[in-house]
C-alpha cells in the first residue's frame, strides 16, 4: 500500500476536511488514525478536542514527521491488519483518504470496527460527474481528489458512494452519518453524481 504518496490538493482544504471529521469526534476521545501521514490530523484533533491516541504509518519519512510533530505513531503496514490493537480499545478509528489505496479493503474496514467503537472513512467519489465525463471521453479520471495518472496511482480500490453504501449494507455496517462534499460545499442532491469527496461515520450494525 502506498498511501504515503497521496497528495492533498492543498493544506487549507485538508484542514476543512479535518474540521468536518472533528464534528464526529467527542472531546477527549481515544482515536486511532490509520495512514496518519505527517500526523497533522491527529495534531489538529489533539489541539481542538484534546483527543488521545496514536497514528499508524508505514512510510519512513511520514513516520519520522509524525513522531517529530509529537504524535505517537506506530510503524506498520495496514495490509497486515490491526492485530497489535485490542478489540474496542479506541472510541474512533479514522481512515482518511486512504481506503482507495488499500489492497485488503474489506479486511481493513472490518478491522477498524473491531478495534474501534466507531469508524470514520473518507474517500474520493469515483462516481463524481467529472470522473464519469472523463471516462465517457475515453480517459481515466484525473481530478483534485484523484490527482494521479493511471500509471502512477497508488489507488487500487476506487469506488463510488453507491458502491460504498452497498458495501456497508452487505457487511452489517451502520452508516451513522454521511457527508458528501465538492469544493468544500456539502452536496445533498444527487451526491453520487455531484460529490467529489465522501465522508462516512460508521459503526457495526446492531
Amino acid at each position: 500500500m502506498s498511501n504515503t504518496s497521496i497528495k492533498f490538493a492543498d493544506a487549507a482544504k485538508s484542514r476543512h476536511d479535518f474540521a468536518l471529521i472533528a464534528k464526529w469526534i467527542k472531546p477527549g476521545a481515544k482515536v486511532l488514525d490509520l495512514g496518519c501521514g505527517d500526523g497533522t490530523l491527529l495534531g489538529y484533533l489533539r489541539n481542538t478536542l484534546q483527543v488521545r491516541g496514536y497514528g499508524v504509518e508505514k512510510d519512513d519519512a511520514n513516520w519520522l514527521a509524525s513522531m517529530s510533530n509529537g504524535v505517537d505513531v506506530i510503524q506498520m503496514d495496514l495490509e497486515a491488519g490491526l492485530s497489535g490493537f485490542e478489540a474496542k480499545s479506541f472510541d474512533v478509528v479514522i481512515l482518511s483518504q486512504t481506503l482507495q489505496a488499500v489492497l485488503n479493503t474489506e479486511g481493513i474496514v472490518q478491522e477498524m470496527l473491531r478495534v474501534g467503537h466507531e469508524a470514520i472513512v473518507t474517500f474520493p467519489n469515483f462516481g463524481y460527474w467529472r470522473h464519469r465525463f472523463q471516462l465517457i471521453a475515453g480517459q481515466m479520471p484525473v481530478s483534485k481528489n484523484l490527482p494521479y495518472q493511471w500509471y502512477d496511482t497508488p489507488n487500487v480500490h476506487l469506488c463510488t458512494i453507491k458502491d460504498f453504501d452497498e458495501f456497508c449494507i452487505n457487511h452489517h455496517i451502520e452508516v451513522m452519518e454521511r457527508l458528501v462534499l465538492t469544493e468544500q460545499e456539502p452536496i445533498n442532491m444527487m451526491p453520487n453524481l455531484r460529490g467529489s469527496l465522501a465522508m462516512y461515520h460508521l459503526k457495526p450494525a446492531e
Partner: protein
Amino acid sequence: MSESSSIGIVAPQIAHFTEPLPLKSGEVLPQYDLVYETYGTLNADKSNAVMICHALSGHHHVAGKYADTDKHAGWWDNLIGPGKPLDTNRFFVIGLNNLGGCHGSTGPSSIHPQTGKPWGSAFPLLTVEDWVTSQARLADYLGIKQLAAIVGGSLGGMQALQWTISYPERVRHALVIAAAPNLTAQNIAFNEVARQAIITDPEFHGGDYYAHKVVPRRGLRIARMLGHITYLSDDAMGAKFGRKLREGEIKYSFDVEFEMESYLRYQGDKFAGEFDANTYLRMTRALDYFDPALAHDGDLSRALAPAQADFLVISFTSDWRFSPARSREIVKALLDNELSVSYAEVTAAHGHDAFLMQDAHYHAILRNYLKKIKVGGPA
C-alpha cells in the same frame, strides 16, 4: 543542525557501594564497585541525565577515547557527543559496566573481599532486575532522582524496559531498541551452546580457572563465533563475505579457506583475549531469565502496568535474533496500558547488530525523539 564532533578524551570513574545488594536469586552482594563514565554536564535541576544500558559484551566506555592514540572510540560513539543524536551539549550521559562484568565493575574476576582471591564460580548469578537496582543506586550516588531517558539496545533494551517497571517514577523516557520481552526457545538454545562450549573447555575448571592461571579460551572463542553468526543477517554475511576464498583457490584442508571463517576466527580470538568467560556465562543467563510477564501469568500488559514513561521502541527488519515481532509484543503491551509510545521498524540489512550502526534514518529517529525531551537550564 550543529556540527557534530567526538566527545574527546574521557576517563572512567568508580563508585563503591557498601549497602548490601539483595539479588533475585536470594543471594546478597555485600559490597560492590560500579565503573562508569559520564559525558556532558548535569544541569541545575538534574533533569538532563540519560543512562545507557549495555548489551551482552558491552561496558561503560560508550563514547570518546581514553587517549588520542586509541584506535577505537567507545562502542556507541556514533550516537553520543556534541551535536550527535544524543547530544552531550544538552544531556548528561552515563555509561556503566554492569555488575558481573569484566571491565571494572565487581564480577567473577574481581577479588572476593573475604578470601582475597577471585570470586570465580562463587560469584552469584544476576538478573536484569538486579542490574536495574544497581543502576538506580548509581543514579542515587550521582544525585539523580529521575532520568530524562534510559537507553538500551538488545539486552540493554531489556534493562531499559525493566527500569520502567522497577522505577516508573524515576524514568521519563525509555528507548527500547532491538529488544524483546523475553528470549525465544531458539535464543535460549543459542545461549546454551555458547555456555556448553565454555563449561566443557578443559581449562574452565568449574569456573575457578583464575587459580590455575589459565582461561577457557577455546570455549569462549567458539561461544563468540556462534554469537556473531546470530548477530548478523544471512544477507549481510553474503554481501560482506559471500563464498570468497582467502587464497583464491580451494586447498582441501581444515585451515581457513573461506573469508567467512577468517572473520569468525578473528572475532573469536579477539574476544577470547579480552573477555571473561564467567561474565559471558552470567550475561547469557540474565538474558535467558528476563521475562517480566512471568510473574503475571505471561501477561506482558499487566507486567508493564506500573510503567509511566514515554516510550520509543525500535526494531530492525533483518534482526532475526530479536525480530520486529518481538518488539511489537512490547508495543502491544504499552498500547494496552495507553502509554505514550512510538514504534519504528527500521529497514536495515545488518541484522541484530544494526542497532550499533550509523544508519541515517535510524539516527534521525533517535535525534528527533531525543530533541523533544524537555530539560531544564544549564548548571
